[in-house]
């Protein structure tokens, strides 16, 4: 048995044990037994999340210590981002989004089909992908990254959306924990967008669990406090330096007409749409008005509350 098979066996048995002893017994009293298969998948999601968080700590924490982009007097500001990461990657926020998106993804899908429209998958639209799950997976990765780029641009361009996205940008001690630091309403908007996208092009093949972790780990790396550029590959994959410039005060997204570096995984989208900036400068991260004393909150609930307040201002006064 190879090490990979041994690992997968261990993973399977752990997932089965957790499901049968911890999750499944809760389903009948909660009236959720009909969702047994979804609960089994959610157990896997949480278990993968645990592994992912362990990997982040084991790999990125030493790298942040060895190659820091910024030197901090302490890591107190990072703590709240750990909470965001755990809520996202262990499945709590995805579960809430799944429940909220249910009417959209399933009821709309059902309604469309009842009226004769069967949504397409990427293989329907690009026949050479049929029966080739791995190329199909990568095709979805590229397409989803393209749409993520544009979604990200609108998060900055629309004042009311920026009011929410500001939670993500307000981190002044940006680390590998910061990727999931988002406003819950921002999560709802993102989930809505990708639910609608899935009605248009389907969802990616779900069997490549370990591959599915890679984009999430890369996004954590992009936010890490590591002074890395990727040399000749800097234009292929978003590096920590490239994304740090996007988060920089007065640079990146705060450069007015020169706003830049919106790509999530592949800088090609920035290059194609004229928003790439491969500057060597390493600016401090945050939002300019924080230096004028604006408070974005230091705890989870304060950040959520102030995000809602800014959204209200943006919708009523036109300025967040």
């Amino acid at each position, binding site marked *: 048995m190879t090490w990979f098979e041994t690992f997968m066996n261990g993973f*399977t*048995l752990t*997932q*089965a044990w957790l*499901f*049968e002893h911890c999750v*499944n017994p809760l389903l*009948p009293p909660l*009236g959720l*037994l*009909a969702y*047994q*298969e979804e609960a*089994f*998948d959610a157990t896997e999601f949480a278990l993968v999340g645990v592994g992912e968080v362990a990997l982040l700590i084991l790999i990125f924490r030493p790298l942040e210590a060895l190659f820091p982009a910024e030197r901090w007097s302490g890591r107190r500001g990072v703590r709240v981002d750990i909470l965001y990461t755990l809520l996202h990657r262990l499945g709590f926020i995805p579960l809430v989004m799944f429940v909220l998106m249910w009417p959209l993804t*399933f009821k709309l*899908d*059902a309604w469309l*089909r*009842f009226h004769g429209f*069967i*949504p397409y*998958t990427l*293989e*329907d639209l690009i026949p050479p992908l*049929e*029966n*080739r*799950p791995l190329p199909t997976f990568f095709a979805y990765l590229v397409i989803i990254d393209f749409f993520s780029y544009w979604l990200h641009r609108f998060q900055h361009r629309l004042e009311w959306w920026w009011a929410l996205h500001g939670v993500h940008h307000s981190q002044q001690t940006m680390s590998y924990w910061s990727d999931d630091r988002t406003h819950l309403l921002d999560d709802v908007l993102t989930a809505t967008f990708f639910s609608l996208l899935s009605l248009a092009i*389907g*969802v990616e*093949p*779900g*069997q490549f669990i370990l591959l599915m972790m890679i984009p999430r780990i890369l996004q954590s790396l992009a936010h890490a406090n590591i002074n890395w550029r990727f040399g000749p590959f800097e234009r292929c994959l978003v590096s920590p330096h490239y994304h740090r410039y996007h988060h920089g005060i007065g640079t990146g997204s705060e450069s007015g007409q020169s706003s830049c570096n919106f790509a999530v995984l592949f800088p090609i989208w920035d290059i194609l749409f004229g928003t790439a900036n491969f500057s060597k400068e390493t600016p401090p991260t945050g939002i300019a008005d924080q230096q004028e004393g604006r408070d974005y909150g230091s705890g989870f609930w304060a950040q959520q509350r102030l995000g809602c307040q800014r959204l209200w201002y943006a919708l009523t006064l036109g300025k967040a």
Partner: protein
Amino acid sequence: MRSLLMTVLAFFSLTALTCRAEVVVVLNSGEGTITRIDRQSYQPIDHFYVGREPHHLMSLPDNSALIVANAVSNDLVFLNPKTGDILRRLPRISDPYQIGFSPDKRWFVANSLRLDRVDVYDAHDFHLVKRFELASMPSHMAFSPDSSTVFITLQGSDQLAAIDLLTRAVKWIIPIGKTPAGVILTPDGKHLLVGVMGLNEVAVVDYKTAQIIKHIPAGKGTHNFMPEGDGRHIFVGNRSGDTVSIIDTQTLTITKTFPVPGGPDDMEVSADGKELWITNRWIRQVSVVDLSTDKVVRTIPVGKSPHGIFFENHAARQ
């Protein structure tokens, strides 16, 4: 030249062997693959991609191919189980989760558990005849012996529905108990058995009067059925309790229960009545039960979330 000849001979020998071997086909719903297993040696033959979320499979009425229903790919794949060749793919079949042919081979019914819908197709050319909106979570199905009615469990709304295939109208819907799953006709054709997962029981239904006439306590998470092939006994899997029970359909009692690990789900019984093959949903395995001892004697690794299972030389379905 000689090595080429040897290679060609080896290839044809292997092909001939593969064609002769009895093949077990397992659908790994969580990874979109099929595992084929040699039933004699219990060794996996191959493992290949078939589409997204293949849950259930069945033979065409003329046994010319196996139909694999890919729920999320929205298609039916016609497979040669002996060679593993995909013969053709029928696209634009909306979310086929559970599938079935009426006994008269006139209708092909596909349940969409995810989207609260039941589709009735003409079995000859698979053109859609009628689409029913049936909330919620239409799960398993069984047909009346005269093919006039298809019975469908509604897993989300705790009901059993009957659809008249001749008039293409819903005949009745009755409450059946919390989270019903499998449904099967007893060999004498008199009753329906429904696996009620949330009540850990089998509900016995007189489908002519749409009445529940008996509740048979079973194991935890009573889920799916498969006839033993003797015209009397039926296996029922208890997916949450990791057991399988045997129901005597003449006395409507459970005669035996034995353990099967990892969420026993779909089953297949050998024609000689010696072996029961079961997909173990949570542990990526198929179990083989020796029916002379009611013990799991083999476990075979397959893919993620194995669901449907089939082999040709199976016991009678009634």
